[in-house]
């Protein structure tokens, strides 16, 4: 390796170390998280907070998380919203997580929601079945693509927050394996789109 190349590498390494420290020190303070924008009560729905278990607490760490049980009409379901602005690694691909928890994905479909589209997973584990719907929302646009979420979140960090708002993962799933009608929930529970 020539001396010039060696110098370039030394400069690169020093810059990477220095910029890494600087970015960490001067990372812009995140605005108030939008995950709590969904009201607990309203016309036609009631909700209550659910506690996070130990493994969830260790997984989410600094991320803002809302885990609630809601009843909308005849549907009783769990809502989980994760804002990874302070811990990007708290947000995983839901399909990957459910597979890791022993569920088999029997079907996967996309369906339209306000501002974009969501993904509906049909899961099975032994005799248990459940439906899970999820999407990523930056407050205006919504989508169900994990790759797009990674690109958005990564670009946002690389531009120090200038590329847009942090997308939040919103997930609704049945509780105690009770069947739910996801389409009905999305239609009747407009507060979901407050995030």
């Amino acid at each position, binding site marked *: *390796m020539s001396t010039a190349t060696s110098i370039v*590498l030394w400069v690169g*390494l020093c810059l*990477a170390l220095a910029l890494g420290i600087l970015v960490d020190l001067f990372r812009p303070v995140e605005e108030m998280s939008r995950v709590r924008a969904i009201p607990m009560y309203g016309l036609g729905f009631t909700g209550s907070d659910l506690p996070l278990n130990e493994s969830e607490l260790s997984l989410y760490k600094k991320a803002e998380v809302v885990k609630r049980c809601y009843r909308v009409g005849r549907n009783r379901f769990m809502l989980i919203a994760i804002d990874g602005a302070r811990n990007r*690694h708290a947000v995983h691909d839901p*399909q990957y997580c459910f597979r890791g928890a022993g569920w088999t994905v029997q079907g996967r479909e996309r369906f339209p929601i306000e501002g974009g589209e969501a993904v509906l997973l049909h899961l099975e584990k032994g005799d248990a079945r459940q439906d899970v719907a999820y999407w990523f929302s930056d407050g205006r646009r919504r989508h169900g693509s994990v790759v797009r979420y990674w690109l958005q*979140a990564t670009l946002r*960090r*690389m531009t120090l927050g200038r590329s847009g708002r942090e997308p939040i993962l919103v997930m609704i799933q049945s509780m105690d394996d009770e069947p739910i009608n996801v389409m009905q929930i999305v239609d009747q529970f407009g507060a979901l789109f407050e995030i």
Partner: protein
Amino acid sequence: MPAMQRPQLVTILICVYCVLNASDLVSTWMYSSRDSSGALALALWASPVAVFWYRQWKAPGPWEDRPFLLGLALLCTFQGILGSLHVLGHIGLALALGSLVPPWPLHPVWLASSLSWMPALDWFGGRFFPDYVAVVRILAAAVPAWVLIRSMQAGSRSVP
């Protein structure tokens, strides 16, 4: 006997930087039941590096650092930190380790097979061949590494 030519200090430091910033792999292997075979895959995949340097130690030969790969490794790892994206750190680690082996003809194939030990393979493979991810992981790590080691041995035999 000629002294062994070692990598330059900057090469070693860039490798250490990449290793430290890919340390999330350890927790992934420890806590994810699906990814635990990744540790074995990394050991298999990185075996040409160990074999090459063992041979260098036993019978010192010429060695040239690989600044292009090192620069890419540094860039990927730094972008991974900045963008909070582990997979870039893993690619950085693969490039840094890849820079510790001379440019054999099969080197690019072996480098590409580094995907075998990355958690990204489980994410990707889980969609298409969920029951065979561990097998694919081990085969994809072992076969190119074995071929690279064989070509190193063949190459050294042909050198007078």
